[in-house]
């Protein structure tokens, strides 16, 4: 199995251009919330997720993050561990304590995933971890890890024109 190839900046642009725009009506049933103060990561994640059929919402900080988690009830949350003011770890704790959001699986994303971060967030209830930089393949696997494989079948049934990761890679 090849190591996922790290995308260069030029390749990122061309990869993004080839991603399908999904019919937004059909994707509304599958919302994912991204909480990350890094605009670029927000956009990359958004593009990938949209191409697989998800509706994405992005929050710049913890305050928006909690508000959107409550408002949109996403299927899962992708959470940057390193954010100014309120850290990702604190936010994770809060999400796990608030009734409405406690069952939403959280995927932690980090540019510096060390044993401590991993240990702490795992203890606080994070479901998965992804290190920056990441490839489309890895992201897909992690999302599937959090949501379970059946979700993709459901999405495909709802929207047959959907491209999935295998098609994109070929």
């Amino acid at each position, binding site marked *: 199995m090849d190591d996922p190839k790290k995308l260069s900046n030029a390749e990122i642009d061309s990869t993004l251009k080839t991603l399908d725009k999904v019919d937004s009506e059909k994707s509304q049933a599958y919302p994912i919330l991204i909480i990350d103060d890094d605009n670029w990561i927000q956009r990359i994640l958004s593009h990938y997720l949209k191409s697989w059929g998800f509706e994405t919402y992005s929050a710049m900080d913890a*305050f928006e993050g*909690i*508000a959107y988690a*409550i*408002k949109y009830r996403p299927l899962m949350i992708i959470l940057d561990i390193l954010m100014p003011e309120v850290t990702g770890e*604190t936010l994770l704790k*809060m999400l796990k304590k*608030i*009734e409405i959001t406690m069952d939403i699986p959280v995927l932690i994303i980090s540019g510096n995933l060390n044993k401590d971060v991993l240990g702490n967030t795992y203890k606080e209830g994070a479901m998965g971890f992804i290190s920056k930089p990441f490839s489309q393949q890895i992201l897909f696997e992690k999302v599937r890890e959090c949501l379970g494989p059946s979700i993709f079948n459901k999405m495909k049934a709802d929207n047959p024109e959907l491209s999935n990761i295998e098609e994109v890679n070929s």
Partner: protein
Amino acid sequence: MSSDKHALYGTHVKGRKADLKKDEPKSFKVLIIDDDKWSIRILSKFLDSCGFTVISATDPADGVSKALKHKPSLIFLDIIMPDINGDQLLKILKKIEDTSNIPIIIISGNINEEKLLETYKDGAAAFISKPYTRRILFEKIEECMGFALFSFLGVVVTSDEE
């Protein structure tokens, strides 16, 4: 200040009670978010004594949960708490759609001008410094709740008053 005004806030409202509608009396729920149980007790006692329904939370996450669950008419928020400080919690409550319109009164044992400005900027409705008197507390509540409070207490404000 006429002593009649005190009577407004006591459990027995004398004299000027309006006809409370026979249907559902509106219940004023108040949420207190404070990590200090004693502070909660003192405030609770005051609020209880004039007929509010008091809900309390000792940590920010529980505070958010209860605010969503009970939709209180008013929130008292302690500014200093572990984990997330009161100001950040204030911002969160103001961002969440369902709680954004609830007036929030900040309580603090230690204010300065900077903190005052910051919390007003972030959406606080009023600010109370500890220690506070019953009168100050009710003045602040009245400030935030206005007319709604009077109708709840069943008081008709006539021109006889001050």
